[in-house]
């Protein structure tokens, strides 16, 4: 693993230079939000920003994407092409929670028997450059409760840590190291850097003020699929789906065909377990008939089913769902309440 230092003002130039050669996705300001966009000339690159409004998952798993194209022939519709091929890219400025989300998404999309070619293609060709959270940005951050850390490098190819005038830059993976030369002449580190980083890391961890007993909730969830508690959590929910759309780990999708005259494309688009149609069958039967079952699914999926299947919680503690739920439903509170219910035996 290569470690270097880079002057702050140099970083802008390097990223700009890379963006002239290959695709660079980076956080930019749009209105009052920060969003990941393809970095183009004249755009201002952000490095000091709390976190993006949307999770960057759309880079590998777009909101809608063409899976294949088809055209009408004498025999009916036939495939006329597959989805678009991904280009080499850099995803710059990802926060550690969002970088971790890619590791979690890999567990679903990159399985041995069925590999999701669309996701894997983009993911494989993209190098992730992350920005450690020396100052965790929000009171709603709870990454340390769910297996993350404000300065974690998990899921990143390159990690940048703000040391004041310079960034400590770690090239963590072969993919990251391949980018090393594009950074030009970087200063060598001295042996104090690691200990400085360690100190920053301990500090940032202390700044995370929100803690939830996420791992502990599993035991209760295992036994209490039927529990009056589930009647209480969804009551204000508008079923808008905001929580799932903003969530970096939610990956549910729909597949549909879009026609235009004699041609068309099969697309996939994000879907949400918060919607009633999600499990509605052609017969009219719906195994999740009300918002109660849908909210239970959301909690179960993140804190139990994912753990059963992959030994990981499917939440990175980014707090987006907490910040943007229009009726202030707070997943942290739900998990806390569950921990208090533990003693209750039905």
């Amino acid at each position, binding site marked *: 693993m290569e470690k270097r230092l880079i002057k702050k003002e140099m970083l802008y130039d390097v990223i700009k230079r890379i963006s002239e050669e290959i695709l660079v996705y980076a956080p930019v300001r749009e209105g009052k939000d920060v969003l990941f966009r393809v970095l183009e000339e004249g755009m201002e690159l952000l490095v000091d920003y709390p976190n993006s409004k949307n999770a960057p998952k759309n880079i590998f798993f777009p909101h809608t994407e063409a*899976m*294949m194209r*088809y055209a009408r022939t004498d*025999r*009916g*519709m*036939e*495939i006329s092409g*597959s989805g678009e091929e991904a280009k080499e890219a850099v995803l710059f400025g990802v926060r550690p929670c969002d970088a971790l989300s890619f590791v979690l998404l890999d567990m*679903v*999309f990159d*399985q041995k028997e*069925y*590999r*999701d*070619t*669309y996701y*894997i*293609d983009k993911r494989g060709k993209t190098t992730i450059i992350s920005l450690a959270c020396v100052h965790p940005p929000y009171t709603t951050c709870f990454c340390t409760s769910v297996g993350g850390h404000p300065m974690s490098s998990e899921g990143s190819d390159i990690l940048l840590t703000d040391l004041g005038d310079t960034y400590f830059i770690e090239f963590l993976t072969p993919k990251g190291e391949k980018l090393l030369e594009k950074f030009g002449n970087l200063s060598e580190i001295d042996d104090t850097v690691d200990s400085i980083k360690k100190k920053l890391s301990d500090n940032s961890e202390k700044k995370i003020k929100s803690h939830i007993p996420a791992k502990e909730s599993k035991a209760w969830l295992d036994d209490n*699929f039927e529990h009056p508690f589930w009647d209480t959590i969804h009551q204000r929910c508008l079923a808008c789906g905001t929580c799932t759309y903003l969530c970096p780990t939610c*990956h*549910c*999708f*729909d*597949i*549909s*065909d879009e*026609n235009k005259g004699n041609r*068309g494309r*099969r697309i*996939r688009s994000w*879907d949400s*377990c918060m919607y009633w149609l*999600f*499990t*509605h*069958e*052609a*017969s009219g039967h719906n*195994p*999740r008939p009300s918002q109660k*079952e849908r909210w239970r*699914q959301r909690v*179960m*999926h993140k804190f*139990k*089913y994912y753990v*059963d*299947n992959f030994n990981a919680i499917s939440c990175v503690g980014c707090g987006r769902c907490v910040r943007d739920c229009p009726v202030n439903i707070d997943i942290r509170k739900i998990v806390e309440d569950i921990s208090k219910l533990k003693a209750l035996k039905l």
Partner: protein
Amino acid sequence: MLNPYMPIPVDVEKIITEVDTKDIKTFRVVFVHEDEKERFKYLPGQFAELSIFGKGESPIGIASSPTQPDYLEFTIQKAGVVTSALHNLDEGSRIGLRGPLGNSWPIDYLEGKNIVVVGGGFAFTTLRSLTNYMIHDNNRSRFGDITVVYGARSPGLLMYKDELSAWEKREDINMYVTVDKGDETWKGREGFVPTVCKEVGPSSENAVTLICGPPIMIRFTLPVFFELGFSRENIITSLEMRMKCGIGKCGRCNVGSKYVCKDGPVFLLAELDELTKEY
């Protein structure tokens, strides 16, 4: 890297209208490319996603048996957009197919045992596949007694009629075809599937039963088999859930931690007990 979402082309060779109401048809399809035919290795109980471009995809159980290597069959009830489009097809049309998907009836587990097949309504399709598989010359000796109870609401709603009468003529399989209510022409058995199962009273000794049908039929059939002494490990069923990807990605069809499309659709009752009752 093989794209698991990419349908392969198949041609509809034959369409058979199965029932009087005409809303259940069997589609016999053949592969367009030889290599894709070779690659498509399946077992009874598995399903495929059938595609009509412009309309979408639907998961449909494979109704033919691997012992019928020249084609695949799907028996489809007209329900909504895709299934209606399938029903409007003419012979010779080209459609798309992805699969085989899901697990299968557990053939290894069934081997050497007496088998009771119980089907109600049009959910009989993959049990028909299994039955054809088991009674094929190459396989018949691998299984003990085979009993089939299959029921429909009326004689006009029985599917696979020619096949049923062929099976009835065989010595090596016990057939019980029944209808809830007969008509003037019906000479066969009358009675609900659970009642007939009770009358037949298959021994639970070294036996497994496989049940598929409308939820209400399953609900009333299960107690009959418990009474006969079948354990929850020896009752097997197939679940249906709304599906899209069919490969455990779209997050739609889970029951607890299991995905019906990938870990199912076939489950032992004992396995279902472990899952949440969300289906």
